[in-house]
């Protein structure tokens, strides 16, 4: 089988909804992510914090193969991909993307499609849903994110906060097992960001498994179960949210939290 996994054998028994093991990424000789491990249980919310350039977004984007990791294994909700060696087959990557929903910093709604089409077209193409089924799901989700009257609007007519809530609805429409958020409020002013955070909080309360890269320290502390602190391409520490915020173990974490909280 000629595939090498570095020094580590991949985990054989998969417990948990998300099992990431030894994940790394290098561009030539420069190493942007190294040896990241993370196990998340169903319904768990983990926030990823840390300074710019720490590898937070790269880590998140490796999980659905928007970035190609160069080593390690990713197992999410039944999908499993081993990185490194040759590129994994398309169907494993499709599977990985199928079980994850992604929310981007810049929303990335499809600007030429109405809100309704943004939410229904993926369902129709990926799930083979009928137009009626897809619209029913979309209407339910629009209510859930508090925008039931925006179905016919084009994204350009909506505020940033509304666009991001629509983007969340679009991701939820494919019934992902895990939601990935890449700095979902960083492009929004603090007040508008709150409406997005409120939707995310509801989602967490409903038991969605969520991995959130964020600079929102209140959200990290109050909503997430655990906080993972990244720095320099690796994990500095990970632990229960309150504990990481109040008694960080790592010196670099202390420095970062002081800088963020003293603003």
């Amino acid at each position, binding site marked *: 089988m000629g595939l090498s996994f570095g020094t580590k054998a991949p985990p054989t028994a998969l417990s948990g909804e998300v099992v990431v093991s030894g994940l790394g990424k290098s561009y030539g000789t420069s190493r942007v992510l190294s040896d990241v491990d993370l196990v998340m249980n169903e319904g768990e919310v983990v926030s990823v914090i840390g300074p710019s350039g720490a590898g937070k977004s790269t880590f998140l984007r490796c999980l*659905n193969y*928007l970035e190609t990791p160069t080593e390690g294994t990713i197992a999410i909700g039944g999908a499993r991909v081993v990185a490194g060696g040759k590129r994994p087959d398309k169907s494993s990557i*499709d599977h990985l*993307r*199928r079980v*994850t*929903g*992604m929310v*981007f910093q*810049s929303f*990335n*709604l*499809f*600007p*030429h*499609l*109405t809100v309704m089409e943004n939410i229904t*077209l*993926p369902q129709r*193409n*990926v799930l083979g849903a009928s137009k009626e089924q897809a619209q029913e799901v979309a209407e339910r989700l629009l209510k859930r994110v508090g925008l039931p009257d925006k179905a016919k609007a*084009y*994204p*350009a*007519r909506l505020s940033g906060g509304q666009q991001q809530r629509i983007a969340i609805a*679009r*991701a939820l429409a*494919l019934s992902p097992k895990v939601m990935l958020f890449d700095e979902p409020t960083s492009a929004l002013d603090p007040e508008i960001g709150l409406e997005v955070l409120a939707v995310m909080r509801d989602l967490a309360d409903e038991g969605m498994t969520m991995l959130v890269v964020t600079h929102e320290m209140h959200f990290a502390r109050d909503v997430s179960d655990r906080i993972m602190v990244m720095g320099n391409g690796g994990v500095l520490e990970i632990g229960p949210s309150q504990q990481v915020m109040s008694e960080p173990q790592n010196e670099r974490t202390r420095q970062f939290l002081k800088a963020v909280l003293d603003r």
Partner: protein
Amino acid sequence: MDILTQWLGWLPNLAPGLLISLQLTGLALLFGFPLGLLLAVMAAAKFAPLQWISFLVVEIGRGLPALVLLYLLYFSLPDAGVTLTSLTTAIIALSWNTGAYASEYFRAGLAAVPLGQKEAALTSGLRGWTGFRIVILPQALRISTPPLAGLAVLVFQGSALAFVIAVPELMSKGFEIASITFEYLSVYLLTAVIYGSITLVFLALVRVLEQRLGRHLQRN
């Protein structure tokens, strides 16, 4: 003699030429634009030979003046055992020329669609041809429309070159009339008015189309 009466008298002779010009332009666009899109997609392909083919076809099509391309095809194809009418030869030459230029406009349009759109398509399960068709292409086409409309005008005007390989289009009909009546200036002034007015009407229509295509971007 009043120039308008003179022109009205010539119109019946020019009309079949104009029809040929429009037909030639229409077919060159009909074949050239899809060819251009295909070449643009090939240029971005991961498989290197596709890139080379695209490069070669585009650089020949753009590198040679349309007139030279017309002559080369007109005189070389019969030697290669292919006998085509002069109209067909002109259609091929102008389609090639159009496709080569159009490919650059399509390429620019495709490149101008933000990377985030492709990523959102992928994470929404819209990959490959489906994602291209639903997400990327419509946005690229809107961006490419104004330069493509400009190209369409150039092709219409360039269709006059087919005159040199004896395609009976508008210019050649004008030349016929001029060589009988010796009213060169008057005849060519009339053809100028015809080319110009069709172009202006076309561009006005394109402006309406552009507004429709950009409707979704208006904020209120």
